[in-house]
């Protein structure tokens, strides 16, 4: 008896294996390589995985005969290492990723290298992309083509300490009006300096804590150069630009700050803790930061003092001021983006997967989880998060880094100038000349010095 059954099971099994499945399912692996490096940004990868599950359901419904499987990683080390790995990945025929996430500013280098594809012909196929904040597409363009899908964005406000302004004799109305005055060009960099100097002289803040900027190199220095009237890109020729007069204004402002005790001589000390600590101790009057730092302060620095409530009570924010009355206020965003690689064998599916990733719920999940700004208009309307709602208007003042493969050399030179000026190594005028000769030497004919 048992034997009969065994034979029967065996025969059925054999037939099942030999028959072709009712619907042949091809499984396509889509490799997605993503990076934070900050931990809270992990949804840059997880959202792609979730999107793949949804896409698979639709593919099954369509009887497309294909299912996708997302493989890849979320890198939390650093950009250098990630970019090197990606560069090698591009070269490997077997292991090349299909989707890579990175800052929009790498688009020129990767596009010129032939590692990524232009997405202009793919984007109109998916309605999801219509919801993206239109200005973000500008950041994805290079040489007239669109190279990426926006992933998230942020803004870099000028923060101020409301409690310290009050000690300085400001009324609540005056404080509440400050963001507006910053935005309309009524409160300039010189006013920031004068207020901070006043605070130092009246011992409301310690010397050097009138104004803080980031302690290491970063895209923000470009933003400050712009706010002093600088131009960094010539759209007509596609070349980078150094405007010596504007750079001199910026460096002179910094040097004056150091001499008047408003800015620390050693502000560029590579130490983020020495940035966050005095700020969240309530000892710094003005500082330039990023919207994503709000989440860091909330969770890591002021959680014992009352978290976000304390932040709202003590910190205010607005765009960065202009350098002349009535000038243009500014912030800068460095959107993250998803690229589709030239080596991908499944470009259509990869872009479709990104369309499924670009939806309000996933966008909101990432934005709230990492204090980045949402990229979809629907999300911006719907997300119930006071700070994100409060700062989204800053995107009206936002600008992007110029699309140029030699941007890094430009940034490094300008940053070294800041460092040399603040530490008193050279005068602002000398620093400007050094920067000009550095960019001419390293970027050659791709830079205009004016």
């Amino acid at each position, binding site marked *: 008896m048992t034997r009969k059954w065994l034979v029967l099971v065996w025969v059925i099994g054999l037939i099942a294996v030999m028959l072709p499945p009712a619907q042949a399912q091809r499984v396509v692996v889509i490799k997605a390589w993503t990076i934070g490096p900050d931990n809270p940004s992990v949804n840059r990868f997880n959202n792609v995985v979730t999107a793949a599950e949804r896409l698979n359901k639709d593919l099954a419904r369509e009887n497309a005969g294909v299912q996708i499987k997302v493989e890849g990683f979320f890198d939390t080390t650093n950009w250098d290492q990630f970019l090197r790995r990606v560069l090698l990945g591009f070269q490997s025929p077997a292991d090349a990723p299909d989707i890579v996430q990175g800052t929009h500013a790498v688009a020129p280098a990767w596009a010129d290298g032939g590692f990524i594809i232009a997405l202009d012909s793919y984007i109109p196929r998916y309605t999801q992309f219509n919801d993206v904040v239109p200005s973000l597409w500008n950041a994805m363009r290079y040489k007239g083509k669109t190279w990426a899908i926006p992933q998230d964005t942020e803004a870099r406000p000028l923060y101020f300490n409301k409690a310290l302004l009050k000690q300085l004799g400001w009324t609540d109305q005056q404080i509440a009006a400050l963001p507006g005055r910053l935005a309309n060009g009524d409160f300039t960099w010189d006013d920031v300096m004068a207020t901070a100097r006043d605070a130092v002289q009246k011992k409301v803040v310690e010397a050097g804590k009138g104004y803080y900027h980031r302690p290491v190199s970063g895209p923000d220095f470009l933003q400050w150069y712009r706010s002093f009237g600088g131009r960094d890109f010539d759209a007509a020729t596609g070349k980078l630009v150094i405007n010596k007069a504007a750079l001199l204004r910026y460096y002179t402002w910094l040097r004056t700050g150091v001499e008047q005790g408003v800015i620390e001589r050693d502000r560029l000390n590579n130490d983020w803790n020495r940035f966050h600590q005095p700020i969240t101790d309530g000892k710094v009057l003005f500082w330039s930061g990023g919207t994503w730092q709000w989440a860091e302060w909330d969770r890591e620095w002021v959680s014992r003092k009352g978290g976000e409530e304390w932040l709202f009570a003590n910190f205010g924010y607005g765009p960065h001021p202009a350098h002349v009355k009535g000038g243009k206020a500014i912030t800068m965003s460095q959107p993250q983006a998803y690229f589709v690689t030239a080596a991908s064998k499944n470009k259509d599916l990869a872009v479709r997967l990104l369309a499924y990733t670009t939806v309000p719920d996933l966008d909101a999940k990432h934005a709230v989880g990492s204090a980045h700004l949402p990229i979809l208009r629907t999300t911006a309307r719907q997300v119930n998060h006071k700070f994100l709602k409060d700062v989204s208007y800053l995107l009206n003042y936002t600008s992007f880094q110029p699309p140029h493969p030699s941007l890094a050399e430009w940034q490094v030179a300008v940053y070294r100038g800041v460092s040399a000026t603040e530490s008193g*190594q050279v005068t602002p005028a000398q620093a400007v000349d050094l920067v000009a000769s550095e960019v001419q030497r390293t970027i050659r004919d791709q830079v205009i010095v004016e």
Partner: protein
Amino acid sequence: MVRKAVASEVPRARPGRPRRRYGVPLLFVAPATVLILLFFIIPVITTLGLSGTDLSTITFRQPKWVGMQNYETLFTDPFLSKILLNTARYVLLTLLFNVGMGLTLALLSTSVPTRFGNQVRALWLLPRILPSVVYVLIWQGMTREAPFGLVSDVLGVSRNWITAEPWTVIILANGLVGASFGMLIFTSAIRAIPGDLFYAAAVDGATTAQTVRRVVLPMLRWPILFVTAYQTLSLLTSFEYILLLTQGGPGFYTTTVWALHAYQLALSSYFGNVQFGLGAAMAGLLVVIGVVVSLLYLRVFNFRELVGEPKVEVN
């Protein structure tokens, strides 16, 4: 002498049959030769080859041959002399600190009872077993402004000492780690000096200083050559503490050394366009400098005599 010994050990080798005559010696040097080929000669040739191209992120697929252009770029850099001087300063000062401190530690810790000496040496090894990033974090903590920084508190001047005195901090941070290497080698060398020599010196009425000067130091010549040469070469190519402490700043290349400059140009770029060709040219020059310095050392320390046959038979 050596040749004679080999010849007598291989009696069947006949003149006119070089293959047999050199077969065994070749067999013995083969493993080292293969290693040197694989890990020195081939990389050097590859690097020199790369340095003649414009290889970068953008041209990664189709690099073009540009000949000497990368070297031209390097030699027209107005900061070239500054970076070279920085490198010399970094290597020399760190080396002096390293070897001097290592020697002092070895001499002091071998002149006290062994168990105390061992403990002192174990303490000095601590920074070496710390990951560099953690070690630098400790330095950053110590050199902060008051009230957080130890140095500021002790000196009574509140500065960020990494920015205020970048070179001092870099040399101390490097030297304190590096000293333990010399310390270990010198200690074992001092231990290996036959006790008779110390007794003889004592009988002759030599003071401690004289014993160190006339007995210990001459016996340490070989280890000192080794430590100095080894440390020079590793310092020439090392930059991780500088990268972590100052990133080559503050300002324009204040503490940028050659290896760091090459790293920043060739391997590190936030925006992805990395200049591999230029970096290879810099690495190529570093190889030349390294080889020249090594030859110089062999000359100065009279290497041939050091590896010559002993004049006295010691059993």
